[in-house]
């Protein structure tokens, strides 16, 4: 053998159990994991295609849309962002990015690779962009596409979206919304908001393993795609080809790629859970439980980073690091107790902690546990006068 069999694969992997209260992935639900152990089917077998159709309906429910071009990308949240941008942008197009944290950088990077030019309308970490400011930016830049993140996980802000769709359409632009960190935890009605493309991921409020990116395109968005002068440069993420595989159009399905069989089973189980709970109830649950977290944090002398309570994301809470405290030491202490809590990201690195309470992880027991652990970890650093 030129390359011998790896010795490290002779023993089982070390996979400790942890409570994942960071920005994602969150813990996976038992029945969702169970679903993945069902026997594989072929990616074009009728039984599997039926499961894909059921998943599509589930995605329409969770996005609150009647869009026909609705499916799940074989890839995680980033694949969703890439798919949205690569289909809707052509070289020379203008993209306006609402920049309220880290994710604007990713979108900008991807858009530039599509040959688009990018401008940003910016607010500082902890704040959101308002509709009037957005409209001014659109009027001056005349973008083809506007990109906004609803659940800005780097700052803990839930960006309000009212009027954004209408404003975009008034000015002939399409609206793309990232709901990776907010879907199932914050209110979102794609059609009511006139959203042209929304995408999310499986590993936050859906409590499924990271695997697929649910996505949906409006009629307007599909029209722009059809009018493209050049092919979408990514075969793998071509929305029309994927739409065909997912049976979104009245035409026979063709082989595009090998679908992620077990992940689709998992997504079906996750969507079934959410449908049974009810989307409204799920959102209310997150809001109720996060109040307990705010009270707990106040008791231990720390406060949420986002001062305006109406702007806070109910499934991811950012906490300001008090002066003199070593933020990483707190994270390390919690990790040694099997609890993941994250530090900041990008513009907020070192300035805050991020506590994710996604889906089934949003409950009183977890909140009490993480607050108690943080209290002890903070006390460990306090010098007594």
């Amino acid at each position, binding site marked *: 053998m030129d390359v011998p069999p790896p010795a490290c694969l002779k023993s089982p992997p070390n996979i400790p159990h942890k409570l994942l209260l960071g920005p994602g992935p969150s813990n996976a639900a038992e029945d969702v994991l169970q679903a993945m152990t069902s026997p594989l089917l072929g990616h074009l077998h009728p039984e599997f295609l039926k499961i894909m159709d059921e998943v599509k309906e589930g995605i329409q429910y969770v996005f609150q849309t009647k869009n026909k071009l609705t499916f799940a990308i074989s890839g995680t949240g980033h694949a969703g962002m890439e798919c949205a941008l690569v289909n809707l942008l052509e070289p020379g197009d203008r993209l306006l990015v609402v920049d309220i944290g880290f994710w604007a950088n990713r979108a900008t990077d991807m858009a530039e690779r599509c040959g688009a030019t990018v401008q940003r309308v910016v607010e500082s970490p902890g704040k959101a962009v308002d509709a009037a400011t957005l409209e001014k930016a659109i009027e001056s830049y005349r973008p083809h596409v506007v990109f906004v993140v609803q659940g800005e996980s780097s700052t803990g802000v839930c960006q309000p979206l009212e009027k954004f769709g209408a404003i975009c359409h008034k000015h002939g632009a399409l609206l793309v919304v990232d709901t990776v960190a907010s879907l199932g935890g914050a209110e979102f009605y794609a059609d009511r908001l006139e959203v042209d493309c929304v995408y999310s991921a499986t590993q936050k409020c859906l409590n499924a393993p990271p695997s697929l990116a649910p996505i949906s395109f409006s009629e307007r968005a599909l029209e722009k795609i059809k009018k493209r002068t050049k092919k979408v440069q990514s075969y793998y993420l071509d929305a029309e080809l994927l739409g065909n595989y997912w049976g979104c159009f009245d035409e026979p399905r063709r082989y595009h790629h090998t679908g992620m069989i077990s992940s689709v089973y998992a997504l079906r189980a996750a969507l079934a859970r959410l449908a049974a709970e009810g989307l409204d109830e799920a959102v209310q649950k997150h809001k109720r439980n996060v109040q307990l977290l705010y009270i707990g944090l106040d008791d231990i002398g720390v406060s949420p980073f986002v001062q305006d309570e109406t702007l806070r994301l109910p499934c991811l809470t950012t906490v300001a690091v008090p002066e003199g405290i070593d933020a990483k030491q707190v994270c390390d202490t919690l990790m040694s107790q099997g609890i993941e809590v994250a530090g900041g990201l990008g513009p907020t690195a070192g300035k805050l902690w991020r506590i994710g309470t996604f889906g089934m992880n949003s409950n009183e027991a977890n909140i009490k546990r993480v607050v108690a652990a943080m209290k002890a970890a903070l006390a460990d650093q306090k010098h007594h*006068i």
Partner: protein
Amino acid sequence: DYSLQEANPYLNVDNPLEEGKRLWSLGELANAILHFEAAVQRDPQSSEAWRYLGSAQAENEQEPSAIAALRKSLDLNPSNMDALFSLAVAYTNESMDNSALSTLERWLAANSAYQGLVEGADINFRRPMTSSFLDRQYFGELERKFLEAAQRQPAGVDATLQNALAVLYNLSGNFDRAIDSLQAALTVKPEDPRVWNRLGATLANSDRPAEAVAAYSRALDLYPGYVRARYNLGISCMNLKSNREAVEHFLSALQLQQRGIGPDSRQQISDGIWQTLRSAVMRMERSDELLRAAEGKNVAEFARTFHQIAPSNMSSMAQHDQTN
């Protein structure tokens, strides 16, 4: 409520309060505390005895007990200035910021050297404490009164006023001003280990770890049995990633707490110190066995395991004379 030791060998000695004070002045903290406990059982209505007990327990790094005793002292004599000061310090350490502010206000009101600064109606239950976060407006009002008091200092520096100012500024995070006040206090009381510890903690909380260590070391030179300063020094070691040394200091602190009552009694042992010791152990290598020993909360057992697993290589920080 204060929970007294069951097996106190000094319950029937003559004049336990005076004997306790004497032992305390010699730095024999654990035995002093036992005497103060005897004193409050002998005379439960003595605000002074409860105050000594509370202040000593604070130095012994037993803050909840300190708070309970100090509150009792104040129930009996609401103007006991020493009790008010010690309680304000305890509230500050426990992040009960607004309680600390109102206690400092009461201290100023009770201080005969600075009369008339606090109106009678101001004190006691002045505002609902809905949050532990410092009420900035209240702080501002109190700071003004304290600064006026400082202007009126009778002759040169009033060390107790400067200490109170330092506590006030620790609450608001104005560490530089707190440090100035403590350095002023040190000009009149250069050998007061409590001021050195307070200075160390203020320096540490304002991210000046090396200077903090120097201040704690000075406090321990003057008062080797000072459990609180030794605990703080352990935290400094953790901040500086010297986890093994941190554990050594926490262990010394626990051993100090145990003196005078025998190795098997667990009553005077501080849960707080065990918890922080455990955090330090978790960051060491080969920590599983040590962690189990730490969870057992038996000082002698832990010491045995620790010296087996992590034999001493004394660095300058650990060289502070550890009374054994």
